[in-house]
């Protein structure tokens, strides 16, 4: 249990009960990390915690039923994790309301934007954009005090952010992508980094329901997230901040699988008065 690259590292993963979150949790536990798993789904959360216990032992995992969009619930989860393990090193913001909440098959016959339930759009913004901010704002002070830490935000492919048929999913991820760049900027010099990690395309999770008709093996498998998240959570990634990493291209090497967060390649755009940098 004390062996591995991540021995002594405390990691909180949201949406840790299934999908990408669970695959990442398993890989991190195998490397000796201690894990707080946050999820809304109590039953799946217990199952995920049992799986982690088998890998890393009873003392290495704490399941926390919490809603990342609820200020009381989210902040309590972060503080509990930090107090339980005595520190907090890594936050993986993975929890999200997916496009499956809009329709069973967003590739065909998906609702137009004016046909969406406004509540689902708003909930996507709350969980997928405001939730990560809430978790990160609560977790960052622990990391800054320690002089080391990681914030890993799961967004989506840049062109999926404006793909029709998924309601507020893409826009909410665009907000998180932009915010990750701002987070990295705020964290400069603290030893804490902020980066984006995405699978790189539709992944084999419940977000892509069977009703899409896509064979499960044609999707990116959640295990693709494992090697890059272990690297991001380790000392090996020191100094890498404000970047986005594409898990499906991880095997092609660091250069090939990464780029800057958001869309700075499009250059300076805003006309600002002299001396104003923001």
């Amino acid at each position: 249990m004390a062996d591995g690259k991540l021995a002594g590292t405390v990691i909180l993963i949201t949406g840790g009960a299934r999908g990408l979150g669970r695959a990442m949790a398993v890989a991190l536990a195998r490397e000796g990390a201690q894990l707080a798993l946050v999820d809304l789904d109590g039953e799946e959360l217990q199952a995920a915690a049992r799986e982690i216990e088998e890998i890393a032992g009873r003392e290495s995992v704490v399941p926390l039923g919490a809603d990342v969009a609820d200020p009381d619930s989210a902040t309590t989860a972060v503080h509990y994790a930090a107090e339980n393990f005595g520190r907090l090193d890594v936050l993986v913001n993975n929890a999200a309301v997916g496009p499956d909440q809009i329709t069973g098959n967003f590739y065909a016959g998906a609702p137009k934007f004016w046909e969406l339930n406004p509540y689902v759009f708003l909930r996507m913004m709350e969980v997928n954009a405001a939730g990560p901010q809430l978790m990160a704002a609560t977790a960052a002070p622990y990391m800054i005090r320690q002089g080391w830490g990681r914030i890993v935000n799961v967004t989506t492919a840049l062109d999926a952010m404006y793909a029709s048929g998924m309601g507020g999913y893409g826009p909410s991820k665009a907000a998180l992508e932009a915010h990750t760049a701002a987070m990295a900027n705020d964290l400069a010099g603290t030893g804490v980094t902020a980066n984006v990690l995405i699978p790189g395309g539709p992944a084999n999770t419940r977000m892509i329901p069977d009703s899409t008709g896509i064979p499960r093996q044609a999707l990116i498998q959640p295990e693709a997230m494992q090697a890059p998240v272990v690297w991001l959570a380790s000392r090996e990634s020191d100094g890498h901040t404000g970047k986005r990493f594409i898990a499906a291209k991880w095997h092609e090497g660091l250069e090939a699988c990464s780029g800057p967060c958001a869309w700075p390649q499009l250059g300076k755009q805003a006309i600002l008065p002299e001396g104003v940098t923001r």
Partner: protein
Amino acid sequence: MADRPLEGKTALITGAGRGLGREMAEALAAAGAKVALLDLDRDVLSDAAKAVEAAGGQGCALAIESDVTDRIKATAAVEEVIGKFGGLDILINDAAMGPQYFQGGGGTGPKFWEIDPELWLRVITVNSYGPQLMASVAVPHLIERGWGRVINVTTSLDTMYRRGSGAYGPSKAALEANTSIMSEDLEGTGVTANVLIPGGAANTRMIADHIVPDRASLVQPYVMRAPAVWLSSAASDGINGRRFVAALWDEDLPIDERIEQAGASVAWSQLPSRAIRPAGTTALD
């Protein structure tokens, strides 16, 4: 008629009580449109409505105190416009909570962990969800008439990820992405969705005096006037899914060159980063 290209059109402008919204309201009224001004703030609304009537004539303005994040109020506002003016053609989503809400007394703006979570969420709700709600309520009326405009005010692409502005930039990134989605969904309906931005820090209350004391050095709100009128008019038929920078809109140029200079595709579609997708699928993750 030539200088009143919006004769017979009705526009609803959110955040029309001041700043860019009021400027666009006056410009559209001067161009012949009936204009419904929507704002949270009753006091600025009545002044703005008077200015709009001065620009466009008696009876051309309708002031509606409302909230773009309230589904019932938003629906009632659209119904009130249609009841009063007999229809709705143009929606301009201008209402937003700006960076000034995060910047307080000055300095370099707060770090992300110093921000009140309720405020962060409120800004996302007003700036990203508000336009979605307003557009989803208004657009069915526009589609029914076979012609219409949705114009969303976002911000410069690099302002979306600039630090120190809290949720402002991220909320505008979401609206930018959603405008692309809107334009795709509206293809073929006669209704278009585009982005119009000033092009930099503008001389409105969003940029506090302590940040830029020399107000003349800011982009002035009047730059929004001409492109807002053009986007609202039949002259922009077929222009869909584009973003226009008002400060680059040069009336001395022939229209095609003007469009070329001030326009780009919406969002960040110029970037090569694309999802790896199973064969036969066209969108997603």
